[in-house]
């Protein structure tokens, strides 16, 4: 962050000090020692926060076996944006509602710093009013009977008039919604409504921001613009955020950390890029949208490389870190971007380990790129530019050679994994 901008929001952070609850043990866990010291000595309380969000709860739904079981642990000491990612109905929104206090889980605990928000055994349930969080609904839920200014000022009732004015001015200029003050929500565009709703939440300086598919109701250009700005604002204000989305590109563009939801369970947790590149199991691979998933068997392991037999084809890939042995049943995951194509008798000197002879089965043009379904003994998806497609003179039924680096093939063990939160075939989940 730029220093001057830091100063600009110092006032903001100062006041945020009221929320900070310090807990040494958690500092050590999540902060490098040096920054720990600096934070600790900072008397202003600026982000000495060691707030950690710990959620471990279960919620059942009426009339069916549907339930969600969530385990989340996020350090809140420094800014981070956690994406809750997964298909619709996987329980992401319900998780967010439970964190906000709008829904009550049936079992488990939710802790924020050393506050207990929910504890089923001790029958503790903090209502949303006392959690001091921000919650943004998918379609913004602006108060239709209030003007933009009244909407933004809604949560500031307890503040003095000058402070209220100052807060509103700050947020209005940051989110660039000046000039709309006297309009009513129905007179705003989708993007403007989104900003106003965000302003209404952020002006209260929540300790944690919960965003439920914040961009899904917007048209594509506005969505792309806001996507860039949203992260920028949140970093500026240093408000840790949990964001629900089912949009891959949104998750990749926004998130630092990703919690993968499948059928009411968190099936994988980790840095966004890592989860996308190396899904832990086949469900996770499907959810993150791995283009090619094929079943195979390990026939050889040496020098950290595994040779996997898929149908009649042998592929060399990085060996999975643990549990792999010759004869293991595995899945291979290949992103379409990791596949390059050439035509005819290609030069053998290339760094790609895998050269597969195949045939184009289907061509799907998506503007500047072309998505190809190949048959290389198993179905393989590839992504090339329209330019390359034309230059190589490709068409349906063309014979091609697909090149795949060993590092572009991710191997996951098949069969029930021992991971916690692993889903055991409960296919019929209601809309949650």
């Amino acid at each position, binding site marked *: 962050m730029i220093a001057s901008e830091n100063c600009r929001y110092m006032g903001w952070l100062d006041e945020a000090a009221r929320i900070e609850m310090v807990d040494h043990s958690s500092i050590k866990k999540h902060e490098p020692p040096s920054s720990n010291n600096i934070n600790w000595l900072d008397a202003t309380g600026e982000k000495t926060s060691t707030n950690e969000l710990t959620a471990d709860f279960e919620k059942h739904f009426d009339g069916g076996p549907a339930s969600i079981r969530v385990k989340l642990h996020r350090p809140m000491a420094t800014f981070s944006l956690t994406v809750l990612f997964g298909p619709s109905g996987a329980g992401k929104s319900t998780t967010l509602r439970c964190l906000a206090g709008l829904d009550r889980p049936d079992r488990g605990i939710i802790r924020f710093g050393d506050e207990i928000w929910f504890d089923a055994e001790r029958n503790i349930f903090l209502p*949303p*009013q006392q959690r001091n*969080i921000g919650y943004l609904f998918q379609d913004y839920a602006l108060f239709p009977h209030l003007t933009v200014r009244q909407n933004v000022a809604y949560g500031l009732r307890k503040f003095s008039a000058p402070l209220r004015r100052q807060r509103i001015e700050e947020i209005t200029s940051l989110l660039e919604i000046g000039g709309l003050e006297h309009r009513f929500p129905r007179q705003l565009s989708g993007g403007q409504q989104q900003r106003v709703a965000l302003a209404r939440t952020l002006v209260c300086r929540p300790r944690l921001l919960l965003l439920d598919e914040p961009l899904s109701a917007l048209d594509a250009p506005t969505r792309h613009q806001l996507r860039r700005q949203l992260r920028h604002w949140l970093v500026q204000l240093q408000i840790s955020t949990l964001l629900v989305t089912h949009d891959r590109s949104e998750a990749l563009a926004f998130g630092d950390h990703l919690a993968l939801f499948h059928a009411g369970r968190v099936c994988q947790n980790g840095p966004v890029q890592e989860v996308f590149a190396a899904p832990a199991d086949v469900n996770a691979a499907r959810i993150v949208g791995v283009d090619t998933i094929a079943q195979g068997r390990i026939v050889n392991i040496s020098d950290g490389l595994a040779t996997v037999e898929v149908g009649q084809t042998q592929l060399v890939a990085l060996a999975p870190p643990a549990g792999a042995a010759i004869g293991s049943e595995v899945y291979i995951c290949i992103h379409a971007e990791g596949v390059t194509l050439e035509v005819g008798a290609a030069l053998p000197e290339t760094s790609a380990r895998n050269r597969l002879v195949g045939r184009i089965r289907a061509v799907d043009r998506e503007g500047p790129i072309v998505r190809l379904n190949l048959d290389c003994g198993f179905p393989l998806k590839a992504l090339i530019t329209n330019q390359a497609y034309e230059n190589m003179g490709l068409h349906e039924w063309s014979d091609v050679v697909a090149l795949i680096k060993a590092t572009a093939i991710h191997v996951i063990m098949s069969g029930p994994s021992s991971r916690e939160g692993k889903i055991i075939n409960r296919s019929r989940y209601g809309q949650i």
Partner: protein
Amino acid sequence: MDLEAIWLSLKLAALTTAILLFAGVPLAYWLAVTHWRLKFILESLVVLPLILPPTVLGFYILIALGPLSPIGRAYEAIAGKSLAFSFEGLLLASILYSLPFAVRPFTAAFAAVDQRLMEVSWCLGESRLRTFFRVTVPLSWAGILTGAILSFAHTLGEFGVVLMVGGNIPGVTRTVSISIYDEVQAVNYSNAAMTSLVLLGSSFLALSVTTLINRKAVY
């Protein structure tokens, strides 16, 4: 024209409406938000006066107010007079009789308010009560006003229940509609016509106003 009866009816209608606003709004809000399994029983009870013949309702109220019932006895012990055939008894009967005309529009209006707006308000730190006054009421004022106007107009014109519970005591329980009935019985058609016209006019006005506000009240 029986001005005394008109004044009495107006007083009765105003008091009934005021009390229904105080008691009916919380009841309606609760009906709108609760997920209680047995809610339907209460809902049916509220609507019952719409279906029940006024004489039947009046009969039960009369019994309940009379000296044979605990309510009647308790009231007599405290106030020193009977609840039956009194203005207070009439007021109580009117409240019960007009209950659906107030509670139903209230409930419909509250149920139509987007639940998420209230949730937003809670997340912004506002209590449920404050949220009710800052969000729910402004967004359902048309329904509340409709309920109030309807119960006012309905009380103004009630006949059967009044006759059963209040009787026909001039200045105490003799309301407009009973006055009209008396005039007709006495073949004073011109008097009856005058008073009827007042009721017709006020009812039409009430309905016009409710129709208008419900058309305009769209955000």
